[in-house]
C-alpha cells in the first residue's frame, strides 16, 4: 500500500490498472477524458497489458467492450453524461448478455442547456438497464469500487455489468490522498475472470438470438432480476473481503454516519455526503440527533438497510442531484417505497439540489435538517432555485 495524491480520474485509472483490465475502449468526453488518457499512457508504457481501442463514439465503446468481454477478457470503459445516454441501448445489451463489463461514469448534467458540471441525471436515467450502480464519495473509494465492481460483476452467480460513479470535478479533477494497494493484495482479492461461456475457436454458441414470447424471453429477464438480487450479498461480501485482503473500512450498500440513535437522517449520494457529514457534526455539537446515510449502491437498491434506518428515525431527508419529471426525486421515490409497511414509517422529505453543478454547502443542508426538526418534510422542494425574470 502506498499513499499517493490522485485525482478521482487518476484513482479510477489506478484501479483499472490493478484490476489488470485487458481491453479498454473509449471515446473522449469531459470530465471523463483523463481516465482513459491515463490508461492509454499506461498501455503505451507497458504498465498495463491491454488493447486500447479508440472508437468513434460511446455507442461503439460499449459495443467493443461487450465483444471483448464475450471472449473472456476483462473489459473497461469510461464515460459521462451524453456519452452514457448514447450508450443506453448497449447498456441493456450488456446486462441481457450477462457480460461483466465495468465502466466508470463521471456524473455530469445532460443537455440542453449544455453543462459539464456534476448532476446525477445521467446515471439515474440508466436505472432499469440491469447495471450495478455504485456511487463513490472519495477518490479512494472510486479506486476500491472499481475493484469490487469487477469482483461482483464477474461472480458466476451474478454476471452483470457494473458502473462506478464519481462526481464531475468535485471528485474527477480534485486531488486527494489515496491509499493505492499493492498488486499482490489486489491479485488475492480479484483473481482472473473465469467466464462460464466465451467466444473462442473450437466451439459454437449463439449470443443474443431471437426469443419469441413462448420461448425463453421472460426467463432470461427473471434470471437477470435474480442475479441483481444476489448482487446485494455479494457486494457486502466483496466490501468485507477487500477490507481484509487489501485494506480500508468495509464498504457496504449504504454507509452510515452517526445514525445509531438518529431521529433525523440525511440521505445523500456521492460527494454531497462529504458536505452532509459536516452538517451532521454541527447538529450533534448542539446535542441534536442527526445522522447521515450515504447511498453507495443504487442498484441493487438497499431496501433492508433503508427499512432498518426507518425503524429508528422520525424523518428521512433525501437530497439528490436528479429529478424524474412528473414523478419526483428518483432516490426519494424508492426510499418511500422501501419504507412502506413499517408500523410507524418516518416522514420522507425530498429535496432536489445541485443540478448542473449548482453549489450545495453544509449550510444549505443544515437549513433542510432545521426544517425537519420542525416536522417540515416537503413532498418535493427544489433547493437554491432563482426565480426566472420574464
Amino acid at each position, binding site marked *: 500500500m502506498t499513499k499517493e495524491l490522485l485525482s478521482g480520474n487518476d484513482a479510477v485509472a489506478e484501479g483499472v490498472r490493478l484490476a489488470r483490465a485487458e481491453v479498454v475502449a473509449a471515446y*473522449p468526453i469531459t470530465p471523463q477524458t483523463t481516465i482513459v488518457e491515463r490508461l492509454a499512457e499506461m498501455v503505451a508504457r507497458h504498465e498495463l497489458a491491454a488493447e486500447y481501442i479508440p472508437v*468513434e463514439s460511446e455507442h461503439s465503446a460499449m459495443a467493443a467492450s461487450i465483444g471483448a468481454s464475450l471472449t473472456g477478457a476483462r473489459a473497461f470503459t469510461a464515460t459521462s453524461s*451524453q456519452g452514457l445516454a448514447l450508450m443506453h441501448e448497449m447498456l441493456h445489451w450488456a446486462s441481457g448478455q450477462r457480460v461483466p463489463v465495468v465502466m466508470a461514469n463521471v456524473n455530469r448534467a445532460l443537455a440542453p442547456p449544455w453543462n459539464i458540471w456534476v448532476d446525477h441525471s445521467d446515471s439515474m436515467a440508466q436505472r432499469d438497464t440491469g447495471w450495478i450502480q455504485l456511487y463513490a464519495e472519495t477518490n479512494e473509494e472510486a479506486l476500491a469500487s472499481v475493484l469490487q465492481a469487477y469482483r461482483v460483476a464477474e461472480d458466476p452467480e451474478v454476471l452483470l455489468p457494473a458502473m462506478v460513479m464519481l462526481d464531475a470535478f468535485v471528485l474527477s479533477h480534485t486531488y486527494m490522498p489515496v491509499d493505492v494497494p499493492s498488486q499482490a493484495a489486489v491479485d488475492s482479492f480479484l483473481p482472473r475472470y473465469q467466464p462460464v461461456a466465451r467466444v473462442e475457436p473450437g466451439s459454437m454458441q449463439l449470443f443474443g438470438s431471437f426469443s419469441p414470447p413462448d420461448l425463453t424471453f421472460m426467463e432470461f429477464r427473471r434470471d437477470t432480476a435474480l442475479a441483481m438480487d444476489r448482487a446485494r450479498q455479494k457486494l457486502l461480501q466483496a466490501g468485507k473481503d477487500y477490507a481484509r485482503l487489501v485494506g480500508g473500512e468495509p464498504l457496504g450498500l449504504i454507509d452510515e454516519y452517526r445514525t445509531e440513535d438518529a431521529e433525523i437522517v440525511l440521505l445523500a449520494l456521492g460527494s454531497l455526503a462529504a458536505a452532509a457529514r459536516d452538517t451532521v457534526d454541527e447538529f450533534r455539537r448542539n446535542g441534536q440527533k442527526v445522522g447521515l446515510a450515504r447511498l453507495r449502491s443504487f442498484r441493487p437498491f438497499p431496501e433492508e438497510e433503508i427499512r432498518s434506518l426507518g425503524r429508528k428515525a422520525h424523518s428521512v431527508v433525501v437530497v439528490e442531484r436528479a429529478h424524474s419529471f412528473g414523478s419526483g426525486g428518483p432516490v426519494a421515490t424508492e426510499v418511500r417505497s422501501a419504507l412502506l409497511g413499517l408500523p410507524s414509517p418516518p416522514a420522507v422529505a425530498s429535496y432536489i439540489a445541485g443540478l448542473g453543478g449548482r453549489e450545495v454547502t453544509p449550510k444549505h443542508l443544515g437549513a433542510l435538517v432545521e426544517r425537519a426538526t420542525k416536522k417540515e418534510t416537503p413532498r418535493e422542494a427544489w433547493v437554491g432555485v432563482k426565480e426566472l425574470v420574464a
Partner: protein
Amino acid sequence: MVEHVKPIQPTWCPGCGDFGVMAAVKKGLLELKIPSEDLVLVGGIGCSGGIHNFMDGYGFHALHGRLLPTAIGVKLANPRLTVLAIGGDGDGYAIGMGHFVHSLKKNASIVYVVMNNETYGLTKGQASPTSLVGFEGNVEPPIDAVLTALSVAGSGFIARGFSGSPKEATNLITQALRYTQERNGFAFVEILSPCVTYNDTYDLWRSKVQDVGKLPGYDKSDRGKAFATCLEVMQQGKIPIGEIYMPPPEKRFRSLDASLIPDPTKGPATLDISVSANAEKYAKMLANLE
C-alpha cells in the same frame, strides 16, 4: 430552451483557424444579402460548433454529431430559411459519420461546413478520424471526407478550403450558399482550420494545399475524374482544395423525378403475409430458391 442573447466574443484560442472560417461564413452571408433573421445556424459539439454563439441569427446547439438531421428537419419544414450546419471533424466524421453520408444522399438544401483541424480540439487534442498516422499515437490512416463525399452518388456541391487563405475560403462559402439557393441541394464545404493549441498545422498546410481548379483540364462536373484527381494529388503528398465538384446542371435528383412519386390515389402498398392462404405460392418460391 430559448434564450435571447447578443452574440458574444468567441472563446477560441487566439490564432485558432476557426476565426478565419467564421469570417468567411459572415462574408458569404453578407455577399448574398441573407438577413440574420432568416438564418439558422446549427452548431455541432466541439470548439468549432460554438460558432452560432458568436454570430447573429437563430442558433441551435445540437448534440455531438447530430447537427445534420436537425438542420435538415428545420429546412424541410420551413424552406424559406437559410440553414447552415457547422461543426468539427470529430463531430462530423467520427460520431456523426452516418449522418454525413446520409445527408449527402438525402440532398436537402443546406450548407454543411466542417472545420477540420485533424483533432478533437475541445476535449484537448486527441486523435480524430482525420488525424495523420503518428499524431497522438494514432495508427489508423485518416478518412478523407472529400473522397467520401465524392463516392456518394447523390452528392451535390463539394469543396475544401483553408482558413489561412481567407479570400478563397469566403468564395467557397459564397458558392455553397448560392448552390443551395439555385440548385436546391446539399453543399458540403470542409475548411482546413488549424488548432494552434493542439495541432498547429498552418505552415504545413500552406505548403501542401493544391487548388485542383488550377490543374490543367480539371473538370469539376465530372465526379469520377474529380475523385481520381484528388486521389492523385494526395498521393503526391498534397491536399486537394478548391471547388472540387459541382454536379452538371442537367443532373436530376430522384426527388425531382415526377415518375418516381407514388400515385396518392392508389393508397399504400400492401403485402399479403397469410402463410396458409399462400402456402402454394411460398412452396413455389422456396423451390425456386434451391
